[in-house]
């Protein structure tokens, strides 16, 4: 029987944390989708050789500290304003690869105007959208994306559409805009899903450098703390409840 020592050699390496993701301990809760998406961002930037040319705009929300974990240049925007900040960064430095990283509260509530208008102007940026159907950072309040009947701290009996309105499929709205060239919905709960999501992210980044317009990659995600489930239960709940309402796949690819 071959021993572990004989297997653990550089030439046998098949997977390790991307180099751009540093060793700082991430503050995310155990199992949080944010971590997986961070790894994908780091991997894609590395594989494109854009380590020195990428500028991220981090949001207000749990991902506010993204700049501590991925070793590229970052700007931190006020709540919801990331696409406006990214617009300025990209217009002033068109040779840079610019993206925003936003939760659903940031992107689809307080930042709705900035999101829609950046996409409508066709800014050559990538918008990474983490849709966990809840405000994670502030303690699990209802978001525009919260599903009908879903319980949160501000709708403890479940979202009532008569009172709270309907869950917002903002990616579908954005897909209607002429400035958006690529709108896709992905997830990161299994290894095949993650590989697919990585391809989508790569295409989005390539679109931005090719000047094709705005690309938006939505990640249907979990927030085990806000949902009050274990990470494993959260993934199951997401597949059973989120995917029927937020179906995966490309909404637009031009």
């Amino acid at each position, binding site marked *: 029987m071959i021993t572990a020592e004989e297997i653990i050699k550089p030439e046998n390496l098949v997977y*390790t944390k991307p180099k751009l993701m540093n060793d700082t301990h991430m503050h995310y809760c155990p*199992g949080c989708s944010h*971590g997986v998406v961070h790894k994908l961002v780091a991997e894609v930037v590395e594989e494109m050789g854009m380590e020195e040319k990428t500028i991220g705009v981090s949001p207000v929300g749990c991902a506010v500290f993204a700049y501590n974990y991925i070793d590229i240049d970052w700007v931190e925007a006020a709540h919801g304003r990331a696409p406006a900040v990214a617009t300025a960064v990209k217009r002033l430095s068109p040779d840079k690869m610019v993206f925003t990283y936003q939760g659903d509260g940031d992107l689809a509530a307080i930042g709705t105007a900035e999101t829609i208008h950046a996409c409508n102007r066709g800014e050559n940026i990538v918008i990474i959208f983490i849709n966990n159907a809840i405000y994670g950072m502030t303690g699990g309040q209802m978001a525009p994306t919260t599903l009908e009947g879903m319980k949160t701290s501000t709708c403890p009996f479940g979202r009532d559409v008569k009172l709270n309105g309907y869950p917002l499929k903002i990616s579908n709205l954005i897909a209607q805009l002429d400035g958006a060239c690529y709108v896709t919905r992905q997830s990161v709960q299994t290894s095949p899903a993650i*590989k697919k999501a990585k391809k989508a992210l790569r295409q989005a980044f390539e679109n931005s450098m090719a000047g094709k317009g705005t690309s938006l990659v939505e990640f249907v995600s979990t927030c085990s703390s806000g949902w009050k489930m274990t990470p494993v239960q959260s993934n199951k709940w997401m597949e059973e409840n989120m995917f029927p309402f937020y179906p995966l796949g490309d909404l637009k690819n031009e």
Partner: protein
Amino acid sequence: MAKVKGTVLVNTERCKGCELCVEACPTKTLALAKKEVNDRGYHYAYMENPDACIGCAACGIVCPDGCITVYKVKL
């Protein structure tokens, strides 16, 4: 098909015991430590059945904290 053998290294201090790697592993190689915890108090992942590992990397890919390094050889 050539036989393969894999092994993983878990950065136990970085691990948060989320169990997603355990769930993703097709060969039931991984488990969470039953008693032992790391400095942050998490029951970290380890190879409970090291002989079963096929080096598929599913555990490493799903780990949100990038704790797992995977190696594989063809026998």
